[in-house]
């Protein structure tokens, strides 16, 4: 949630923060009638916290976000946001319940202007609430105002990524799901995106970040999880994960070290 000046920020107590955020318990997810991609996966993202899920290609990272935003059904387990169970709801209803999902590849609407893309993100708002959300998002991401009239398809990859994040924030989400937000961006834009992410989390939003760039995502996150073949194999504070031998040996290869 974008917290306006004067509004109460989330409590610092971890238990309270968790209760105000996203709680995923023992979910099992698969495509159609195929085998399960995610098995017995549990995680908690507290309000104002950045939680990074890292893992190799095919580990189930994107599937996790698709399941949480209602694009894929959970076969087992539950998903709760601020204590409310919304397992099994359609993506439209999940969006209205306070979860915003920035999908991989940004997926801005190329033929619409950047401003119309932002307004589309605030679809569920009344006219007044939409104007207020737009003001807040433009205040948080002022660069968006300068491209407002340009068609989203003509923006650079980094600009599109900021637009996709701004569009997701238009709904004033309680939890923000980000799928590979650094992919294809220049190091400067990667830094911009990470900084904006920290600012958003400070405002009280629970952020679940899925990334292949292990170092950068864990350096920005508070906590994290290593996902391997659909199971959470390592969970803990981001700094501890970065130092863990198992992570260093298995996931921080030469290529990743070069990117960092």
């Amino acid at each position, binding site marked *: 949630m974008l917290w306006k000046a004067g509004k109460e920020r989330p409590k610092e107590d971890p238990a309270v923060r968790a209760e105000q955020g996203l709680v995923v318990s023992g979910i099992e997810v698969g495509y159609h009638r195929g085998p399960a991609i995610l098995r017995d996966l549990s995680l908690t993202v507290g309000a104002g916290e950045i939680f990074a899920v890292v893992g190799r290609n095919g580990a189930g990272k994107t599937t996790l976000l698709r399941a949480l*935003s*209602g*694009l894929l059904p959970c076969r087992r387990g539950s998903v709760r946001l601020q204590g409310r169970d919304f397992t099994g709801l*359609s*993506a*439209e*209803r999940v*969006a*209205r319940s306070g979860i*915003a*999902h920035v*999908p991989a590849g940004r*997926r801005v*609407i*190329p*033929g*619409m202007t950047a401003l*119309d893309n932002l*307004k*589309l*993100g*605030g*679809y*569920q708002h009344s006219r007044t609430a*939409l104007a207020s959300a737009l003001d807040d998002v433009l205040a948080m991401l002022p660069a968006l105002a300068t491209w407002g009239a340009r*068609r989203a*398809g*003509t923006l650079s990859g980094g600009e599109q990524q900021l637009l996709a994040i701004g*569009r*997701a924030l*238009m*709904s004033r989400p309680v939890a923000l799901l980000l799928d590979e937000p650094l992919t294809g961006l220049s190091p400067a834009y990667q830094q911009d995106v990470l900084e904006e992410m920290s600012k958003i989390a400070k405002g009280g939003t629970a952020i679940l970040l899925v990334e292949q760039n292990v170092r950068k995502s864990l350096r920005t996150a508070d906590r994290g999880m290593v996902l391997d073949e659909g199971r959470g194999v390592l969970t803990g504070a981001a700094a501890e994960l970065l130092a863990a031998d198992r992570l260093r040996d298995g996931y921080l290869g030469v290529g990743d070290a070069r990117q960092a």
Partner: protein
Amino acid sequence: MAIFGQTIISAVAAGAIYALIAVGFSLIYQTTKLVNFAHGSIAILAPYVSYSLLKLGLAMPVAVLGGVLAAAAFAFVMDRVVLAPLRTRHISVPILATVAVAIVIEAVTSLVWGSQPLYLESLASDEPWRISGLSITPNQVVIVGITGAVVLPLLWIIATTKVGRAMRGCAQDPEVVTLFGVSPARMYLLSFVLGGVLAGLAGVLIAPVTGLKPTGGLELSTIGFSAAVLGGLGSLPGALVGGFLIALLINMTQVYLSAGYGLGVAYLVMALVLLVRVRGLFGDDIEAVRQV
């Protein structure tokens, strides 16, 4: 010169009707990426229903309203019953289904109302006013007025409101708009119902001019589709302009070449635009967008 002026006046009135059809075509395409080949057939359903309501003794405005509502209701049922179950299939499947619906409408209208042409009264008088040597009928003024009163607010709604943005977003990425709380199924339905209203209006306006025959739907679909393609399929302002341009071309051809070539010009324009400039006059630069 008088003939030229008179041709322009006739073209403006006919263009207003073609614009109604073309805007409906483009509206549905803009939201669903589907070319509805039953659009013209839905249009002729309206005057047939109006004709029957008039026979039952209802007043003209009520009969016209009933016809337009019948076209909208048919579009509603078509979307829910025929197209919604096919949405997960390749786009060619629902497009072929619209062709099937057009054939069914033609057969059913033939069965119910007969294959002989029927005539429907105009909404206003056809007694011309003489202005500077040119004839303009009150009915032509009404046709242009109705088109303006319906299409211009619709363009504004699609361009500026949240429903309009959702409809435009649906065509480009139906999955991603669900992440903002938009229901693509509702947007598809809405575009079909609005398209049905536009088609029905076009039908009741054109029937007094051309007569009512079961095969009229195909003719209207051809002209409307050509106008929509000329303006840029998916661009509503383009469809509006395309409607008037196609009418001008058809009327000029009929007056200065031969009355029989009118529809041929519509086919020719459609073929040329698709070959030379697929985005038409005002459509999206599809290739440019794809490359990003």
